């Protein structure tokens, strides 16, 4: 029996959005907002800018979604746009003001002791590891959703997360957090 309209899969929503359904596009944006904010944050190191990047990502996506090839995964496609948007924003920011690494790590008055060091440790990770860690911890994304954004399977996302966690644990060990096994 054919699927009912209200019971649509992501693929159907993408097709609907490609066909001009704004509501479906909005639903897709809602589903991926947190993930895109995490991707943006991994490159911009600023929560507000990361949300701006996520919103600009959707603006570029709505202009181009009809070009999305059937074989491309929507989440991975969106993440690729978000990386480009974030890099553009980062470059523009660098041009206007020369910032130190510390300036990109705003401390929060109520934050726990050591949070700043943990963020520093995260920024020491390579791009791929940092993005993976942020996808997981920025808004507790599931490994399945991480896989969709990274364009890999759930199990591959799990493996990638484990490796990133191991590297992060090693850096945290150097920062005096003791031994953290993964």
């Amino acid at each position: 029996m054919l699927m009912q309209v209200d019971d649509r899969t992501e693929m159907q929503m993408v097709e609907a959005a490609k066909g001009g359904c704004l509501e479906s596009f909005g639903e897709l944006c809602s589903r991926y907002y947190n993930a895109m904010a995490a991707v943006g944050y991994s490159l911009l190191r600023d929560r507000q800018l990361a949300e701006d990047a996520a919103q600009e990502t959707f603006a570029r996506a709505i202009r181009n979604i009809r070009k999305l090839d059937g074989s491309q995964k929507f989440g991975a496609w969106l993440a690729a746009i978000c990386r480009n948007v974030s890099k553009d924003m980062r470059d523009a920011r660098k041009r206007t003001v020369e910032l130190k690494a510390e300036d990109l790590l705003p401390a929060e008055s109520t934050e726990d002791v050591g949070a700043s060091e943990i963020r520093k440790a995260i920024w020491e990770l390579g791009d791929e590891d940092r993005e993976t860690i942020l996808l997981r911890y920025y808004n507790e994304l599931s490994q399945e959703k991480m896989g969709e954004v990274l364009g890999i399977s759930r199990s591959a996302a799990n493996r990638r997360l484990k490796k990133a966690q191991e590297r992060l644990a090693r850096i945290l060990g150097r920062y005096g957090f003791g031994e953290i096994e993964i």
Partner: protein
Amino acid sequence: MNSKNRKLDELAGRAIGRSGLQFDFERWKKEHGDDVREFETSGPDIEGPEQKRGTSVWRSIMRNRVLQVGVAAVLVFVVLAGLHFVEKGTTSVAWAELGQRVGSVRDFVFKVSTKATMSGQTINMEMYAYQSAQHGIRMDMYQAGRLQMMVYMAADKGEMVTVMPDAKQYIRMKMTPEYMAQWQKRQQDPRDFVKWFTSAEYTSLGRSVVDGIEVEGIEARSANVGGGMFEQADGQLWVDPVTQWPVRMEIKGRLALGMGEMELAMYGFEWDKVLEPSWYAPVIPEDYKQQGSTMTVAMPSEETMLQGLKVFAELSGGTYPAGLSIADISAELGKLMASAQLQGDIDKSEMQQKAMDISQAGGFYIKLVTEKKNPEYFGKDVTAADADKVLMRWKSGEGKMKVVYGDLAIEEVDDVNEPLSQ
């Protein structure tokens, strides 16, 4: 997860966690009004990475956003029209009463849900159809709950109008008298599918409840379903034993000529409904513009095919489409129109009619295939300069073949049953 790993989760979550982040789509729409308006007013974009053979019908027709919806509609219409008029024999009939009863209905209403997968792309569409032997056809077509097109085919005027609210445009097509005569004679619609069910070898599904009605069903599987629309299909037909009218039909199968796969559900029937003539008069708001000029649709025939091939060769500089299936035609049209448009040597109205002409070549080819006339086409190797080479041939009668040469000369010859070596 061990305790040490939990510690990492806690540390990282506290340091960078951002719970409660919500996306405000309404606000985003206001802040990106221009992009949203552009999205809402433009049709599906077929400007893809690279045009390639076998890509989606919807993507590869042409690069002009304004024209593409209309031409896609024309192409699909013409191809279906090719199937539409295929004569087919009937076999032994079971459930004869039902087939005859439904076949005698002149006016009825129904809904259709389709899920078509063509070249890896899935298209879902819902249609509300109002079919009248006297007045014509009206179909309101929706995608994702949004009205995309209203198609009016007025029987008395021999005219089909497609209104596209998003684009604020409409397409007008004029059918030839021969076309309309055939259309009056046979229509491919749920009645034909009922006949297929009742004439195929079927198995009983017993009683069930479908769409809230207690029904009795049968299941059938066979080739050449829907006048050749499906190459192979499985289907279920559910009938209300009290009223003896069909309640729901579902057909799933491979489309003919490698076009893809389709799931088709027809339901919400209102048989023998009195339909108002006013429903068949196109409602075109004043600010809607006609897309191109009024096109002429003829019955798929040798003449329309030769005209289509001639138009193609004129546009391409002497070559012919590599194939005449729907996938080949759509891909070739995409390349050709994009090239013509880039060169700026063709206006939109002209382009639309030429696309229609070329599509009709495909319509005739499909007709030949479904009528089992064994057409062979050599467009890949034969050009307009090859007056001595066979471009196409098919069985035209007992021991006879029609042969079209590279210069589009046509003759009927004895069928010597020899393969061509060209």
